[in-house]
């Protein structure tokens, strides 16, 4: 196991798990994004601060995300569409999970690639047909993994990464959402 190096500090994660077992209040995080309308359907969202481990925390640098609609929607395409950000979240969350689980199980990864496809019927958001939902109908993730492991072990990595994924859970299970005007 000592020879496996996927770059994930699994010991720190396992230590955190032990500490937080008896300190559930420290495990409460708040993630924040601040968004500003630019023009048309273009907006810019910035992320730097979050709360966790009982204190305000700061990312090393501020991250800036532009969202817009593509030209086929008669927009300027200053950034990806909001729903594509969900694909970014899902792919990166599952990939992080694969790396962490592999490190914990002593599996050396050589490459982990995935393609995420979200099927979307836009008649919903356009109000063409009230029976069509606004969001994705179906999401498919296809992993291509090269690692020192059997096919079954790789499948188990991917299954375990879904089991422990925040974004997979957020997409597959309902979440209460409150939207207010300040």
């Amino acid at each position, binding site marked *: 196991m000592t020879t496996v190096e996927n770059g994930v500090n699994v010991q720190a994660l396992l230590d955190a798990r032990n500490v937080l077992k008896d300190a559930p209040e420290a495990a409460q995080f708040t993630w924040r994004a601040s968004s500003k309308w630019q023009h048309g359907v273009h907006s810019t969202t910035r992320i730097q601060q979050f709360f966790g481990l009982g204190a305000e925390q700061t990312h090393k640098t501020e991250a800036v995300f532009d969202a817009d609609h593509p030209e086929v929607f008669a927009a300027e395409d200053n950034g990806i569409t909001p729903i594509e950000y969900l694909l970014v979240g899902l792919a990166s969350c599952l990939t992080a999970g694969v790396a962490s689980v592999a490190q914990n199980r002593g599996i050396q990864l050589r490459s982990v690639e995935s393609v995420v496809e979200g099927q979307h019927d836009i008649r919903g958001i356009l109000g063409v047909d009230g029976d069509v939902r606004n969001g994705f109908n179906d999401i498919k993730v296809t992993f291509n993994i090269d690692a020192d492991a059997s096919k079954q072990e790789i499948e188990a990595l991917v299954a375990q990464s*879904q*089991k422990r994924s925040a974004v997979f859970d957020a997409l*597959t*299970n309902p979440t209460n959402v409150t939207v207010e005007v300040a």
Partner: protein
Amino acid sequence: MGDPTIERVATVVIGAGHAGLAASRFLTERSIDHVVVERGEVANSWRRERWDSLRLLTPNWLCRLPGQHYAGPDPDGYLTMGEVIDFIERFAILSGAPVRTGTNVSSVRRTDDGYRVTTSRGEIHARTVVIASGACNRPALPPVHDAVPASVEQVTPFDYRAPEKLPDGGVLVVGASATGVQLAAELQRSGRPVTLSVGEHVRLPRTYRGRDVLWWMDASGVWDQRYDEVDDLVRARRLPSPQLVGTPERATLDLNALTAMGVNLVGRFAAVRDGRALFSGGLRNVFALADLKMQRLLDTFDAAVEGEAGLPERPAPTRVPESTRLQLDLRSGEIRSIVWATGFRPDYTWLDVPVLDAKGRLDHEGGLVASPGLYVLGLPVLRRRKSTFIHGIEDDAREVIDHLAGHLASRQ
């Protein structure tokens, strides 16, 4: 010391099921004076808290208690509830267990030299106490059951006896452990269309390479794995019961079998919103997890008999339905009743000793509770993976009573 009118014994055993009776047997062997207090009758839960069609999951040849084993004509069959009750009653009689039936324990408190056990028939002072009141005293319902519209009848496995007791029409069975799959199958057969809500589950074929799958659990040594050898003990102790049923046909009752019967599978029951049940979209992954774990277990079995005749078999992967429903309108009349097969919890409301953790679980190390002289038997993976099975109690009870005897001897 104390009130001379209070009865004093070395040990009070709480519960006259197979676990309490096994404890009693080892106490008797060591001439430790004790009583077994039982709220109802011997084997009470088997009499009053099970549905009509239930049979034991373990084949008859595995039915053994200290000094007693199944001697009937059908070693590969599975006992009905009536037969289980007879088996346990016979054990109580043959081992001469000092059982006091109809004696409900309302409190156990520490004293300077042991415990004060308050029962519906008076107080007993015991230097040691063995909790053998079971792991399944009350059904565990997820909070979401509160949000189900009143027009839908809700039952737990404790209320459920047979399909005829439920209204006609659709049934939503929540949970795919042994209880959930068995009730889904019999409700579907009764003509009630069943939707089964499936979370993480344990898939097992009934037979593997010609033998009962529990023969393999026994022969491969998996069942004898000790609690201090298990990687993730918390997880092992929370594992749902495997998808098994005891039938004369030795049929497999996995999700593929239920799909073939016409049962409609949906994801984990996540929420009720505006009268609609919402299910998780993660069904594929709970199938994958269960299939992978089953494969690993079968690999273990194969390794245990390497070189022997017969080839490894692998059941087909769990079939993913073409489309799964993510929501169901509970007010539409499609679903007339919900069966919550979402597990059971022990009841320790009578235990006035601070030995429960934040989640209400008993703090114990292999049956030695974190209070000197207090012991527990019959919980999942108490000392071994087989702890909650009838044949699994013998080793656990012997070792726990060994420790108890040492405790008594050290404080004479």
